[in-house]
């Protein structure tokens, strides 16, 4: 399989995006008749996801003699095609597909630039996909920036809408600062190690750390560099204290954009974080573990406390997604390459991301459904939803319970894994703070459930018309959420192969 074959999913996305773009330029069927473009985008995404699986299948044939693990393949010297990347890609594509199915109508009704939208949409997927595989900080940075810049435009896509505009601008300003900071950190890493390949950096640091006479030397550069890079990546993953953009952006952006920003984009950021810290900074584990732990605590606490005060469900979900990032980070804190247990931190991160993706996409889709029908995101719009749209309310409840971490949903499994990993590494205080936060979080999730179910008698109940495509997406999300919670075995297997392969390259 050649290099091009290995990045076939990305190429499909590229071709799909450019094709849609050209088609949109060349052929104008008239206002409101461009929905065909969204089907094309979907087709490209499906094909890409399928190709990831194909690449994965063809990839695992070669087994290393040393570690008895499949050898990751390198494409174009900067992309590692391994199980880890493939897992992340499939997760991302799943999120993008679900968003695309549900969000097509939303965007088509609000913007006349469908051609651009679907092009950007595919390109964002492409960027995330590259970020998931990138093994060189040059490409990591470019992919993150590609993702960011395209996202800025998508966040501000409804240019006649003041909120969307403002969301785009704020996202841009915060995001650019963060990426510049990250770039500075990368430049310091380059200075200290002379390379930007993550494994080279890891090897160089391992060598420096191994040589006791030199430890005080260039290793000194690692800590500031690490912090700066963390600032940039933490921004994408909306970790405190870099999360201020998230609520504003999610709130103001078109809901499909907010949906993927809070799920797929976050998944990509965590993939990069994992690759960078677990592989690249393996020699400095003692340094970054406390930092990440502190970030994790601040993130979940700040996110939860802020979410408590919100009256807009969309904004509440935005803050909640900040808090969820804190939980996920907890898993990253507790990664060990020596762990034999399936309940390892990295597994926890991946599993959490996987489950969280379906849950949160679902939750945002419900918000989108309400926006579509009653044009509001305020919690009062959800009052008595059980009478107006029973299935919508039930599914939203499933998602909210999953976000709370109630068993038999995917969210529980993710939480159990990250808590488990923390317990395993004996970070009891971290887990304890997680518990307290779970309690706080339950409060604001339940507020929505209360509004939906605990109705007064006199309220009017007009049935809501939820579009078919949205329902389909929602159903998939709900089924997936419950399925992961009830029968997680295959997912755990999958996750394990992914993380084992990533950890096998840690020097």
């Amino acid at each position, binding site marked *: 399989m050649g290099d091009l074959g290995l990045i076939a999913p990305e190429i499909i996305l590229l071709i799909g995006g450019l094709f849609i773009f050209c088609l949109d330029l060349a052929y104008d069927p008239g206002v409101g008749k461009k929905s065909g473009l969204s089907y094309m985008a979907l087709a490209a995404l499906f094909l890409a996801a399928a190709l990831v699986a194909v690449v994965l299948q063809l990839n695992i044939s070669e087994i290393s003699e040393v570690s008895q693990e499949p050898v990751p393949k390198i494409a174009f010297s900067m992309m590692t095609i391994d199980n880890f990347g493939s897992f992340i890609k499939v997760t991302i594509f799943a999120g993008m597909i679900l968003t695309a199915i549900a969000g097509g109508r939303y965007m088509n009704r609000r913007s006349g630039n469908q051609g*651009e939208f679907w092009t950007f949409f595919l390109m964002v997927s492409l960027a995330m996909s590259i970020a998931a595989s990138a093994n060189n900080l040059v490409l990591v940075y470019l992919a993150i920036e590609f993702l960011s*810049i395209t996202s800025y435009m998508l966040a501000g896509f409804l240019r006649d809408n003041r909120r969307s505009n403002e969301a785009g601008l704020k996202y841009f300003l915060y995001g650019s600062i963060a990426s510049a900071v990250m770039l500075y950190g990368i430049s310091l890493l380059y200075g200290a190690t002379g390379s930007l390949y993550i494994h080279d950096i890891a090897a160089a640091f391992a060598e420096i750390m191994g040589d006791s006479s030199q430890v005080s030397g260039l290793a000194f*550069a690692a800590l500031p560099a690490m912090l700066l890079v963390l600032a940039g990546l933490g921004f994408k993953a909306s970790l405190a204290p870099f999360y201020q953009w998230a609520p504003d952006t999610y709130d103001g952006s078109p809901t499909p954009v907010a949906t993927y920003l809070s799920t797929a984009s976050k998944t990509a950021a965590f993939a990069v974080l994992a690759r960078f810290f677990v592989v690249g900074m393996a020699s400095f584990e003692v340094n970054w573990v406390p930092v990440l732990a502190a970030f994790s605590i601040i993130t979940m606490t700040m996110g939860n406390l802020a979410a408590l005060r919100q009256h807009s469900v969309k904004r509440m979900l935005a803050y909640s997604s900040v808090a969820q990032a804190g939980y996920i980070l907890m898993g990253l804190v507790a990664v060990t390459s020596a762990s034999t247990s399936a309940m390892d931190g990295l597994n926890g991160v991946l599993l959490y991301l996987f489950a969280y993706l379906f849950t949160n996409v679902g939750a945002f889709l419900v918000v989108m459904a309400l926006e579509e029908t009653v044009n509001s995101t305020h919690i009062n719009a959800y009052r008595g939803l059980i009478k107006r749209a029973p299935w919508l309310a039930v599914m939203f409840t499933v998602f909210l319970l999953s976000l709370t971490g109630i068993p038999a949903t995917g969210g529980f499994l993710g939480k159990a894994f990250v808590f488990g990993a923390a317990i395993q590494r004996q970070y009891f205080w971290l887990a304890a703070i997680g518990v307290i936060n779970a309690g706080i979080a339950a409060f604001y999730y339940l507020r929505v459930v209360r509004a939906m179910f605990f109705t007064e008698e006199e309220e009017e109940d007009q049935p809501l018309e939820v579009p078919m495509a949205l329902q389909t997406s929602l159903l998939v999300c709900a089924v997936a959420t419950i399925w992961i919670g009830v029968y997680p075995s295959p997912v755990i297997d999958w996750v394990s192969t992914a993380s084992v392969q990533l950890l096998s390259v840690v020097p």
Partner: protein
Amino acid sequence: MELPLGIQVPIPTFEQFIFIQVALVTAVAGLAVVTSRNLFHSALALTLTFFGVAGVYVFLEAEFLAVSQVLVYVGAIAMLIAFAIMLTRSMMYGRTSPLNNQWGKSSLFALLFFMGLLAFARATPWPAASEEVIADEAMIGALGREFVTTYVIAFEVLGLLLLLALVGAVMLARDR
């Protein structure tokens, strides 16, 4: 060279002397960018900074980069910024302070940051300069080859990004 108070300063070579000039101009211009009350003057100072940085690249024997810097930063980015300032020129007047309400915090933060980086840059035992730069024309060739071999993915990504930025910027900023 000994300054008053007994501070020892090594006598700079001619090259270092010129570098100090360039660096000073760059730094002062950089400071002017963020302190000037007049936005347009900020933009002018920014342009000067870009030139200064290009000069620094020349010192680093990266002429191609220096020219690219002028071409893109001065020729495109500074121009765009000046253009945007003109388009939003009503923002220039009637404002009492160009700083937002957290400027105090940010200035402190930036100062601390600077001192940290400074200490870091001075304290770290950076390796000594390596060998001579390869001959100029060959280097440009090598640079070009890097772009289409090792860095081909990054290069393509950047190209795609530029295309998307173009399309998106037009879409966003276009008048109805």
